[in-house]
């Protein structure tokens, strides 16, 4: 029996990789939830741009603002905002629930319970929402 001859290859051998469909995320509910969560960012960006557009319309004057409001009352924008609301709420809930895992808060060397960190986020959410509503609804 001759000893095996070892030959070093210059390049790494090609790994075997199973081809994954582009639709891999539809195979399981948890995958679909993950991709939907990631895609909420599209509505975040679009709403940021709508807000920028609104600021510009307000600054340009009453006519520009009235035109902007006509757009907002169109079925297209009402539909967009209905979907956007679901998306941003999904983002908020998943974001707050992940916060204790992304940022571990320690007090006197003890890790704060997850529920407390998430709860603080929900409290801030409620407080800030109330403040914005107060500023926009006061007469």
């Amino acid at each position, binding site marked *: 029996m001759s000893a095996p001859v070892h030959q070093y290859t210059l390049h790494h051998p090609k790994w075997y990789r199973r081809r994954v469909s582009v639709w891999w995320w539809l195979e399981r509910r948890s995958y679909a939830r993950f991709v939907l969560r990631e895609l909420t960012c599209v509505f975040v960006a679009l709403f940021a741009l709508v807000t*920028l557009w609104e*600021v510009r319309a307000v600054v340009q004057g009453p006519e520009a603002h009235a035109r902007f409001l006509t757009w907002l009352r169109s079925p297209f924008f009402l539909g967009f905002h209905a979907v956007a609301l679901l998306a941003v709420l999904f983002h908020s809930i998943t974001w707050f629930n992940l916060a204790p895992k992304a940022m571990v808060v320690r007090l006197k060397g003890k890790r704060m319970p997850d529920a407390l960190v998430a709860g603080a986020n929900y409290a801030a959410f409620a407080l800030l929402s109330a403040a914005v509503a107060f500023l926009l609804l006061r007469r």
Partner: protein
Amino acid sequence: MARSLTPLLWLLFSVGGTVAALLFPVHVVLLGLAFPLGWLAAPSQEALHALIRHPLTRIYLFVFVSLPLFHWAHRFRYTLYDGLQLKHLTQLIAVICYGTALLGAAVAAYTLVTMS
């Protein structure tokens, strides 16, 4: 994408995501649905203008628009890589995503600084 930029981009993603999570729902409900549908009385253009003129509101609006755009850029970039398996387009996607966010932030800054 330079390696040294990664922590900054992640920070912008994180802070922008927090801004969006805390503030976007109430804005969408009021400005996107309740005011256009007439559920609640919308503030007039003069009232909004007076509010926007305040320096604190300008800072608020800049944060409100720019940071969530960077949040989108970072998240959308990786969703495109993973979801659509576009790893070979890494650079193009990064440039388009962060470039769009940068442009949006610049327009917001310009609008809020130059407005009367």
